[in-house]
């Protein structure tokens, strides 16, 4: 995984739980997981898992919840870090349809060697979308979090039915997405 993701994870922890929490997480992690990282370089996925595990211990959050919350934060972080990539879509649908053919393609130009997942969309007559996710990392929880971030970013609600999942032995995850306008403005 790229250093950017690690560093956004650090930001996420610091913003949510404070500086001290991050230091505790580092102290609770194995030595090799503590190294300093920079955005464009690639680090072992295992290190991220160690950090997430330590974060759960320190914060008391169950891993599912922690990863999903990080996904929501990650979306905002990536959109902020790469405004040129994120700003070219008219709406959430367009963005989802552009993940594979535009977003992750651009990501690979900026961060050579990035191992981005395959995220494809299929449109239905009723306006819903089927999004398929395929990755050896099987990080569909992170995906859900990213979708939460997408909702917040565009101010829409995206109903999801995640009936087909890699964690249940499917070759890929399938999410049926239904869009509705933003919840009544507060």
């Amino acid at each position, binding site marked *: 995984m790229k250093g950017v993701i690690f560093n956004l994870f650090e930001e996420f922890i610091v913003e949510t739980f404070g500086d001290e929490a991050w230091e505790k997480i580092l102290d609770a992690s194995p030595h090799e997981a503590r190294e300093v990282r*920079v955005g464009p370089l690639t680090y072992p996925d295992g290190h991220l898992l160690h950090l997430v595990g330590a974060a759960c211990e320190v914060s008391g959050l169950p891993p599912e919840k922690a990863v999903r919350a990080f996904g929501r934060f990650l979306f905002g972080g990536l959109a902020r870090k790469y405004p040129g990539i994120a700003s070219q879509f008219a709406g959430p649908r367009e963005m989802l349809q552009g993940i594979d053919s535009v977003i992750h393609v651009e990501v690979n130009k900026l961060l050579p060697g990035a191992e981005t997942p395959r995220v494809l969309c299929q449109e239905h007559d009723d306006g819903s979308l089927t999004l398929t996710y395929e990755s050896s990392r099987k990080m569909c929880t992170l995906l859900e979090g990213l979708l939460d971030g997408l909702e917040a970013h565009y101010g829409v609600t995206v109903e999801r039915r995640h009936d087909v999942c890699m964690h249940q032995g499917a070759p890929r995850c399938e999410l049926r997405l239904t869009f509705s306008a933003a919840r009544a403005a507060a």
Partner: protein
Amino acid sequence: MSEAVLQRKLARAEAKVRLLESLIEDKTRELYLQTVALKASNETLERIFDAMPGPVLVLDEHLVVQRFNRSALKLLEATPLLLTGLPATRFFPTIEASVARVDVEGGAVMTEAEWRLEGPALPVLATLARFSDGVERHVVVIATDLRDRKALELELRHAQKLEAIGALAAGVAHEVNTPLQFISDNVDFLVEALTSFDAFARRIEEAAPGIWSRVSEEPAFEELPFFRERIPKSLGRVKSGLERVTEIVRALKDFSHPGGEKAPVRLAPLVHRAVTVGRHELKGMDVQVEVPEGLEAYGYESDLNQVMLNLLVNAAHAIVDRHGDATLGRIRVFVDGGPEQVVLHVQDNGGGMPPAVQARVFEPFFTTKPVGKGTGQGLPICRKLIVERHGGRLWFDSAPGEGTTFHIGLPVAAAPSSGATHEPTRRAAGG
């Protein structure tokens, strides 16, 4: 935030900066090396592009010239400064229609076009295609210079015309031959009859001496003695005139006899024939043919006829050009050679050629003669016939103000590689 946490954060930030610096250095070095490699490969491509014998032009979306190779510059006789940024319509007026065809048909489109920049119009075969370098769309144009081909087509047409004239002459000669024979037979009859009448008159004179002079004193027969004396001479002249015409007709017939196979060709009759056919141009000149009877070369007789006639006519023109008076002209046709090659020389005392003319005489359409008198195709055709069809040589020596000698080197026999037997150089006379 505690002091300790701050310290740790600072230490990590410093480590990050160091890491980033070394990362930047690595990338910079990598970039440098890649730029060098890219430049080298770019230069190689550029050199290949430039060395390509065919003219190539790369245009942008708006058909403005972006790149071109050296052949393109040469073809258009342009400077790089002129060509860069020039709209291609300036020299290729029909390009827009051709590009439209590329867009409809896809792939590459070939089209014959006339290009013209500063100089004369250039016939070219242009091949157009579109390509994209990932950033921009371009049109690439590859040109083939058609000037040589056009010249060749003209030359062929000229040769075909000559052939047609030849066939026509042969036909006319054939037609003329029959009445000629008929006239000749009648003249023979008249000579015979007159001889008989003369003998008869002599017998009467013997029987009645003085009768001849008495009769011829009568006014009605006044001219009889004159007739008696002149008619045989006059008929003799008619006869020799007829022989000359017969000879010309036969020469014409033989001369224009279409090619056929390569075979041993007797050179003496060939030269005499060409002199006969070209007699109008050679009139009044002293033409000496010193070619041994029986000497042969190996080739196409009709080709050699044409070459010999061309050289003789050129010589005659050069003589008239120099002297204005044909009677001062001297042309000598003579030979030498070895067992495998015979060399025919056509020497004239015409005006010769200055070096600038000498350098160009074999160029198609090069002529110094006024329109109507020369087309400049004689020598190029001769060269082609001798060199390409016979594997021979055609060259010359010329001294301005003194004269010119053309040399034709021809094989004596079929090439040994073709398995033919070796022919002797000279044959017994009269064969």
